[in-house]
């Protein structure tokens, strides 16, 4: 069974002249790494707000169509109920952190659930280890770096044991190495813990290689959905302002020039370099 399924989802913010989502029908299977991209204002963030019920319960407005997440009808369950299934990580971690220590921030959600102390301890330590910030547990979230803060935000979400983690441009305020580290942490959680990941990102250069499922949106609609290699090898994706990875682009240019570089569309520089070494090397 799909872990997320929407049917003809159409949503209009209160007072907005036109809908931000139009007839969105998507299906995400458990354990997938989904990358959602598209021009700014295309409805990516709005769609994410539907997954845990922030839309329509908090934002109000008019929602039509169906949405089921982790077996629950989002329209009938409040955000606090959906939060057990879906963890949300935002662009700017500062907006999410508030406690006096990293550890307390990560434990906050669990304490609210009334879970026994020992169990909280266990879950918090596990989440801190998964995100590689155990050594920072006594520090204040406000004296650590942006990349570390974002890992605290992920750990806080992770401690709740959600089946789905939704990350909305989680690294845009971070330097590239810190960003890579965050993506590696997320990818690892996806592979080893089977957590379904929904990642919203413009920079496919950094993220296409992790995705098993790509959704490209434009003007509130889903324009492309499916296997990232297949979608990114089509020329059409460029037309709606999606920045495909440079390695993929260079591969397409070389193919067009008639170079014999293999049939797999590369999603990362490593993949293209390997194909080129094979095509042009001496062996």
């Amino acid at each position, binding site marked *: 069974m799909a872990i997320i399924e929407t049917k003809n989802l159409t949503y209009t913010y209160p007072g907005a002249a036109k809908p931000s989502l139009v007839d969105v029908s998507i299906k995400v299977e458990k354990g997938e790494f989904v990358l959602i991209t598209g021009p*700014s*204002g295309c409805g990516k963030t709005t769609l994410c707000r539907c997954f845990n019920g922030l839309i329509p319960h908090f934002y109000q407005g008019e929602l039509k169509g169906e949405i089921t997440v982790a077996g629950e009808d989002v329209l009938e369950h409040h955000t606090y109920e959906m939060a057990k299934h879906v963890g949300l990580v935002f662009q700017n971690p500062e907006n999410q952190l508030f406690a006096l220590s990293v550890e307390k921030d990560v434990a906050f959600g669990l304490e609210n659930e009334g879970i026994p102390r020992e169990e909280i301890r266990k879950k918090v330590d596990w989440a801190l280890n998964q995100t590689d910030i155990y050594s920072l547990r006594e520090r204040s979230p406000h004296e650590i770096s942006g990349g570390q803060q974002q890992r605290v935000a992920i750990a806080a979400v992770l401690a709740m044991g959600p089946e789905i983690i939704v990350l909305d441009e989680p690294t845009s*305020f971070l*330097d590239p190495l810190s960003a890579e580290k965050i993506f590696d942490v997320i990818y690892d959680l996806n592979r080893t813990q089977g957590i379904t990941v929904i990642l919203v990102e*413009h920079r496919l250069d950094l993220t296409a290689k992790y995705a098993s499922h790509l959704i490209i949106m434009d003007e509130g609609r889903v324009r492309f959905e499916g296997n990232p290699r297949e979608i990114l090898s089509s020329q059409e994706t460029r037309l709606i302002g999606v920045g495909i990875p440079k390695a993929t682009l260079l591969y397409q240019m070389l193919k067009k020039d008639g170079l014999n570089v293999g049939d797999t569309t590369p999603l990362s520089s490593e993949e293209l370099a390997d194909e080129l070494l094979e095509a042009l090397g001496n062996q």
Partner: protein
Amino acid sequence: MIEARDVHYRYANKVEALKGVSLTIKDGEFLAIMGQNGAGKSTFVKHFNGLLKPTSGTVCVDGVETTKTSVAALARNVGFVFQNPDHQLFSETVEEEIAFGLKNFGFGADVVEKRVTWALELLSLTQYRKTSPFLLSGGERKRVALASVLAWDPQMLILDEPTIGQDHEQKDKLRQFIMQMQTQGKTVVIVTHDVEFVAECNPRVVLMSEGKIVAEGVGKEILTNPKILTESSIVLPQIAQIFTKLSPLGLPKDVIDIYEAEKLILNAEENKRQQ
């Protein structure tokens, strides 16, 4: 022209964010300041319009020390767009937001109208003219902040992380716009982590780390040096990553431009066939 001499800056909480930075930015130059989070990049550029004054050392803008003038006076020539647009937006409509600066500088109603329309058009915001900036997406709010500064046509433009949340098409427009400002002899300084954007624009690059400048040079030279980039928590642009791995084929490593990359690879294939 901006001249920073041995600038030190200490925040009220005693954190020393700048530890002796000297840099000259000539009129008409296009400069990218890069470096890891907390390197002091934003702190440094906030000295260029007098928002921050050095704890010691001096910053001169067009020959005037920033301690001897006001932010308001500097703002006419030095436009500053913050990293987080929410730190700068406050009006009820996009149109009023963009008109605000123009009105403050005393432009007449007809000029304000013309400049607002121009800036909206330039940043693909015309359809949001009467919308509240707070109903827009993150990427769109960032463009409203940019439009409100561009509208008064400053001689120098400082953009703190201008590509955050921007899609490919908007980045392309931003790049073209910066090039256009260049042909008008204007100075553009960007603070950014976006290596791909810098690789496409190829400006002069200044790399900062822990409150100091650690490297300086043309983009092609800095962005293909894995050692100094890694020290600054920056990843090589994809084209440079590919060419780092292609050295067994006898190809150069300092390549960041995709068209140059295409040519070099096709030449390598041609050579292989002739052997």
